[in-house]
């Protein structure tokens, strides 16, 4: 306890630095060999526990919780901290539980036939579709045995693989769960990933939903061509909303601990155990009440996605000229620059090609569209202003290198993408550095308006993916701010661009849902995108 206490104090001061370690080491096995071992990385094969069963003993209670009958709720008010029904949600509705099973579906069989390797056993598939139980191992050394495939992406895959925290987090002393007294940093040191921090969450989710060069999580064009569903642009807040939620936002009234009143109640109860510097705000990501929680998810998600993609691009470019290197993978470029039906008149030709020559695949527009808006807005925020102003030049350099010749100039891309990734990292760190709120209601409204303006600007109208991504960010932030949109306006907009990652929520019996059924409606709507219709309806939304 004394030891733990001492570490809090340090951890509190090094809040931002600690987060950087989390993010950095997770995606970079090289960093794991540094002097400070990543507390989230298992030490060896025995330092891993992935199973769902152990978690389900406590976290698979039917919701709503019957407090009188549930010992954790009754004794420790656990239902005010977490839902306790997480396991059921995951088990019954969450596609993550099917992550490996889908590799054996009809589509998986087809991919096996076309790719000429067994997708259910290939490390390049398992890095995302199973649990990497040797995350410190470099991708080229990974083999099937380094993956746990039996239950898909389980609780511990995201929350932390090490048994240490899994046991510690329900330890009781004198009627108090000791774990509750720990700061997020202390919990991370014990092996629990702080997924309540949008930055940590953004980088973790993006490591699969965008990709990670260091972890070998890269959907290649070969995989797409064999049938891998297209990865949609990653917008953290929208993905969270589309996911069957086994968590609550800090504003969730059920999770009383996240309100000041709930925290006060807890503090009063646990008074004798609390360290002197305890304050409830340590348990929330944003240190001030007046920050819009979702704003951080939107901005961190946008910048972390760009970072993940730039790391993959730099990694690919870095291998130029090496054995088996065939050129930058097509998957690094804007899918829809090539993959669209040819039409007259053409939106693209009307818009022009501000990346350079017509006919050269550019970077994915969505990657830079939202970060561009975020950076432009951040240029008015003191801690970020200097960094934010660098964005147009950095992103411009990547885009120029990408069209310097068909499929990019590797030398220039290596440098530009590396610099862009470093900028993202810098921006994310500086977003948290002084612990002050960035996205107050007023600032969030400015950001929201800027996203709305971008979504309806001519610049992105020929790019349905950027339009969809900006729409997702806009609606998430708007909802997060509690601003109502007329149902009719939203429905109308939904006729021109997909508003959700998945068409319908999943239910108990239909997992796994065939990929075509799950995302087919979104893709069909996406393919029929008409910029004028979209812009007109979006503008309707802006009027209110």
């Amino acid at each position: 306890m004394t030891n733990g206490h001492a570490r809090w104090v340090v951890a509190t001061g090094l809040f931002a630095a600690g987060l950087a370690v989390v993010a950095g080491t997770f995606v970079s096995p090289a960093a794991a060999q540094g002097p400070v071992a990543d507390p989230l990385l298992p030490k060896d094969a025995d330092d891993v526990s992935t199973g769902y069963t152990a978690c389900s003993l406590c976290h698979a209670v039917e919701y709503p919780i019957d407090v009188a009958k549930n010992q954790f709720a009754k004794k420790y008010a656990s239902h005010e901290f977490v839902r306790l029904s997480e396991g059921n949600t995951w088990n019954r509705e969450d596609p993550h539980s099917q992550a490996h099973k889908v590799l054996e579906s009809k589509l998986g069989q087809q991919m096996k036939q076309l790719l000429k390797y067994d997708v259910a056993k290939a490390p390049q598939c398992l890095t995302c579709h199973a649990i990497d139980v040797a995350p410190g191992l470099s991708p080229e050394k990974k083999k099937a045995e380094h993956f746990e495939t039996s239950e898909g992406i389980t609780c511990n895959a995201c929350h932390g693989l090490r048994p240490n925290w899994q046991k510690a987090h329900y330890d009781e002393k004198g009627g108090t769960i000791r774990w509750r007294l720990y700061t997020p940093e202390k919990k991370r040191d014990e092996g629990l990933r702080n997924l309540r921090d949008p930055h940590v969450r953004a980088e973790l989710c993006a490591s699969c939903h965008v990709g990670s060069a260091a972890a070998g999580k890269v959907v290649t064009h070969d995989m797409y061509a064999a049938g891998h569903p297209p990865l949609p642009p990653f917008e953290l807040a929208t993905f969270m909303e589309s996911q069957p939620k086994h968590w609550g936002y800090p504003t969730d009234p059920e999770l009383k601990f996240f309100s000041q009143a709930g925290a006060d109640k807890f503090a009063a109860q646990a008074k004798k155990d609390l360290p002197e510097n305890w304050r409830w705000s340590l348990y929330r990501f944003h240190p001030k009440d007046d920050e819009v929680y979702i704003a951080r998810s939107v901005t961190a998600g946008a910048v972390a996605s760009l970072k993940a993609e730039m790391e993959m691009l730099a990694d690919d470019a870095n291998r130029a000229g090496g054995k088996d290197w065939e050129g930058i993978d097509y998957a690094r470029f804007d899918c829809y620059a090539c993959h669209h039906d040819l039409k007259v008149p053409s939106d693209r030709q009307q818009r022009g090609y501000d990346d350079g020559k017509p006919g050269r695949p550019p970077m994915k527009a969505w990657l830079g569209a939202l970060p561009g808006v975020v950076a432009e807005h951040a240029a008015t925020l003191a801690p970020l202003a200097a960094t934010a102003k660098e964005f147009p030049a950095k992103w411009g350099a990547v885009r120029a290198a990408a069209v310097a010749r068909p499929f990019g100039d590797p030398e220039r891309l290596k440098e530009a993408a590396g610099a862009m990734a470093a900028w993202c990292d810098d921006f994310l760190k500086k977003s948290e550095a002084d612990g002050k709120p960035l996205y107050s209601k007023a600032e969030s409204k400015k950001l929201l308006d800027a996203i709305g303006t971008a979504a309806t600007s001519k610049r992105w109208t020929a790019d349905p993916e950027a339009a969809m991504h900006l729409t997702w960010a806009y609606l998430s932030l708007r909802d997060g701010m509690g601003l109502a949109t007329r149902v009719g306006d939203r429905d109308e907009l939904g006729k021109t661009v997909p508003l959700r990652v998945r068409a319908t929520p999943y239910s108990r019996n239909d997992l796994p849902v065939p990929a075509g059924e799950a995302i087919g409606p979104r893709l069909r709507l996406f393919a029929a995108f008409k910029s004028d219709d979209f812009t007109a309806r979006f503008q309707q939304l802006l009027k209110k």
Partner: protein
Amino acid sequence: MRTAVSLIAAALVGGAFFGPTPPAPAAPSGDRPYAVGPLPGETRGGLSCAAASCHGGGRPGERFSEHSTWAADLTRNPPVPHDPHANAYRVLFNADSVRIAGLVGGGPAHTNDRCLACHTAPNATDGAVAEGVGCAGCHGPEEKWLTRHYLPEWKALSNRDKAAFGFVPTKNLVARTSTCAGCHVGDATRDVDHDLIAAGHPRLNFEYARFDHSEAYRKHWADPAADRDFEVKEWAIGQLTSLRAALDLLTARATAADAKLVGQSWPEFSEGSCYACHQTVGRDLYPTREIPGGLTRRGSLVPWQPWYTALVDDAALFAALFPGSARPDLTELRTEMEKRSPDPAKVKGIAARAVVGLAATLAAIQAAEDRGSFPAVSPSRLAGLLAAGALTDDGRLRDDDWDAVAQRYLGLAMTYHAAGGDGPATVGWRKPLLDLRAALAFPTAAGGRIDSPRSYHARDAVRPLTDLRTLTTPRTGR
């Protein structure tokens, strides 16, 4: 020229005009088509052609009115050009051209040499530019032959003799289709690349027999009605000359890329199948696509030049009927070109060799045409080959690319017409041909045009092609 006339006179006296080695003044290299490469002389436009007593008779569609047929109908306001070639220069001023030029850079289209290379006649003097692709664009710059071609002696000249004056003997199908291909496919000096297509220039997919029978085209000539195999010949020769032109263009592109010339894109996307990339993603997630049976290309890479190479084996069977022809083998070139980053140094070498081989083959065919010793080719036999070549033994498409199947359709449709349309030779062909056409059709769109086979599924082409194979297989043993 004195030499030419006297030699011709000698030949006439000798009565051996169609001899095996006709004499010619300053004979062009014997192993390539007449119309390939720079032609001597320049053109001052078609005004003198349009004289009422020559080709401007004023009765479009009739003999001695060739220029009137080609030219704009001035009785209508605004004037309507009869032949799209007459409009070639004028389109450079329209809204599409202005936008295209703006997107690719290099100044206005009507002053950009790259555009003018095809939108006017080659070797056009300033005054002739505005005529578009006038007489000289196809018949050759008239400078050296204008004052001769109406003399009685002209008729006595061999095609090779005429070619030496810069005249293109367009009655010879090798010369004719090579001329068309120079712009409609491209060559070392005329390049519609992907940058230009992305800016809005239509894709070039030339197939001579299809163009020759275009409803939108008003011919100012008549092809020999008596020649029953004419359509088969023009189709097969068109395939080979188009391929030669495509390979000539590829050689130039690879050479420029190898020399790292600024502005040369490499890999050059217009060498690839358009619809391998230009298709909507996720149209069907399962099955994503049919697995073709013959070619072993990786599904994630772009098929190389399916339009001009799809039927090369079938056309080669035709070429094999001519002594001196060589069978084009594109295996090595295809392997290199279907890599993600083809090596331009390697490509330029292989492609250049293939061009030489094809030119020799075409020269052999050209010479046979000139001699009039053209082998008979049965449309039904060719239809059988085309249908059988589409499929593997286990009934899959050998190549499922839209371009490849569309070329087969055009070839089969040609054989149907060549065989006389509906009749005893083509019993049952009509329905599978229409089904195949429907499978390949582009959807229509209100207020615009879809230039993609959005609803194309290769599997829909299997049944009609299988039926056509059955219908065209020669029956044996009865």
